[in-house]
């Protein structure tokens, strides 16, 4: 009998710090773990426990997966105390992943807040890999402070490759010359017709709610306003009940949902 709870061991190849308390862990596994943007793994350190972490990389040919993890609690704290060469255990990938058919031939608006950039990074990589499939890609990214911006160097590269990268922070420091304020204050900088574009959103729940609501008011159709939700999870496979919201399990029915799917479920968005 196949045991879905049995993790496989991976080896941390590289740990790349990304702003305060956040690091990108590149993990190599013996067998390939094919994953799609928007999916997640249950990641564990034996003795500390398991946590759901979204994939931050595109599935490649080299058996690696990148996980962008913020030091937030017991398990992520244990993960952060690991070094390159240490084992990290994975099972998955789980979840539905981002729908890509709704993006074909359209301008894309990616809205991210804080570490909410992590699941959207493979999506941006995908659009850069297939530029003929989509129109203009705009990234609106907000962080609390400039030193909490993740993938900062990579974003420069994205800019050079034609992505309209717009950054904002809640609180500026001395060196900061960019925008200050909420990401939802940057709509006027998006040079796309929002009615015809597709949006992918991830960040704190208040930001998701605000961004989804505003894009809907701008005339973007509900099924093209897409988000991915975070929840406490213990199993990742629809059994433990922790991520249950409305009649849905965020782990197996999501974590990616369109505005149409979640707007009526008060349990989901007014949590």
């Amino acid at each position: 009998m196949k045991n879905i709870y049995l993790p496989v061991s991976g080896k941390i190849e590289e740990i790349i710090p990304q702003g305060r308390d956040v690091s990108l862990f590149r993990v190599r596994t013996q067998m390939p773990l094919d994953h799609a943007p928007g999916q997640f793994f249950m990641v564990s350190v034996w003795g500390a426990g398991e946590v759901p972490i979204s994939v931050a990389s595109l599935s490649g040919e080299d058996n690696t997966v990148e996980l962008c993890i913020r030091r937030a609690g017991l398990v992520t704290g244990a993960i952060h105390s690991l070094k390159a060469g240490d084992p990290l255990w994975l099972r998955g990938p789980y979840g539905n992943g981002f729908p890509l058919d709704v993006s074909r031939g359209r301008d894309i608006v990616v809205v991210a807040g804080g570490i909410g950039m992590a699941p959207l990074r493979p999506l941006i990589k995908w659009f850069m890999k297939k530029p003929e499939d989509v129109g203009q890609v705009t990234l609106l990214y907000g962080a609390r402070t400039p030193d909490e911006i993740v993938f900062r160097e990579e974003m420069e590269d994205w800019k050079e490759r034609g992505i309209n990268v717009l950054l904002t922070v809640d609180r500026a420091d001395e060196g900061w010359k960019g925008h200050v304020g909420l990401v939802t204050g940057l709509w006027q900088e998006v040079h796309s017709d929002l009615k015809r574009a597709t949006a992918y959103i991830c960040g704190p729940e208040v930001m998701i709610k605000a961004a989804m609501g505003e894009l809907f008011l701008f005339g973007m159709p509900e099924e093209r306003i897409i988000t991915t939700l975070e929840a406490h999870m213990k199993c990742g496979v629809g059994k433990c009940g922790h991520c249950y919201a409305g009649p849905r399990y965020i782990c197996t029915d999501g974590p990616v949902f369109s505005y149409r799917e979640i707007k009526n479920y008060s349990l989901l968005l007014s949590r």
Partner: protein
Amino acid sequence: MKNEWILEKNHLSYWLRQLRKERDLIGPLRDEGKDIVFRSVEQIHEVILDSPASLPSPKEFLIPQYDPMLRLKVAGHELAFPSRPQPVSPDVHMKESFGKKRVLDLMDKKKRVIFGVRSCDISAIRLLDRFYLKGYRDPYYEQRRKNTLFISVVCNNPDPTCFCIGLGTGPYLEEGFDIQLTDLGNRYFVQAASAEGIKTVRGMSFLFSRPRKTDLDDQYEVFLSAKARFHKRISLESPRRMILAGRLKDDFWQKVAARCFECGGCVYDCPLCTCFTVTDRRYPDGVERIRLWDTCLFKGFTRMAGGILPNEKRVLRTMRWYYHKLIHYPETLNKFGCVGCGRCAITCPGKIDMATIATEIKGLALNGEEE
């Protein structure tokens, strides 16, 4: 030929002793207090068949309260862990070279026969089957389910809290059981439905005789009398419609939540509550990954990274419990998430059990108090 037999009552303990040779025999026993619990049976005469509902339900033999899943074996000297399990601090964990560790599957493969189960609990297990074995199949549940034989008994003396009759989950079953017994005074009417149940009875066919017309008549009479004995006649359909139609006042759930003690008793005793948490427990020679019953009524149940509590308000947690059973279960599995066993009514100190709340909602409709 129908899979129906007669078992003389004085053959019962012999039959159970024979079954015990191949399986662990579990039955309803009275514990030191006065609760009825399902436990391993030492003395067959101690099994109580006309007992009130057991607390908790026999679900604990398919999804135990404490359920070790996996064990990571490591050589003792590599870990400077204390001998007793202790809370883990983030800076202590396993560091060891890649690929040398061995993960053992702690799958429980014990064969069991659970005797004296009520019809409502069998109905609940049939729903658990659909939940645990859809999508990703839960291997621990599946293994135990495969190795467990249930012998259920038709209830002819429902508790005052029972309301299975309104839900079609009891007091007797037409299908879906392994073996069902009906007490006919000096003998049992025995029915087998599942392949394993049929095999079990046929394996000891010398104990069983074919039923006669009078036996069938007697069984029918027991069915009728069982149905007539219920104190409560509750349908969950009208409360469901009231909720869906938005006919409850805003403060209805506030009032219910105000009476919730957040003890989790209803969840632990409910044969259909399945939520669990997973935690790692450290030992000198390794780590065990175990799962434990958990409840959505606790504030920390949905706690996210950074300490965000999506269901911080108690009313949201109370509603979650009722909505799951009354609204979402019918949406996803086409059945109510309640079999009318009445255990929550026995346990709940705030008297906000399913029967009480369903009756209250219905009362609002009858009195025209709703908006």
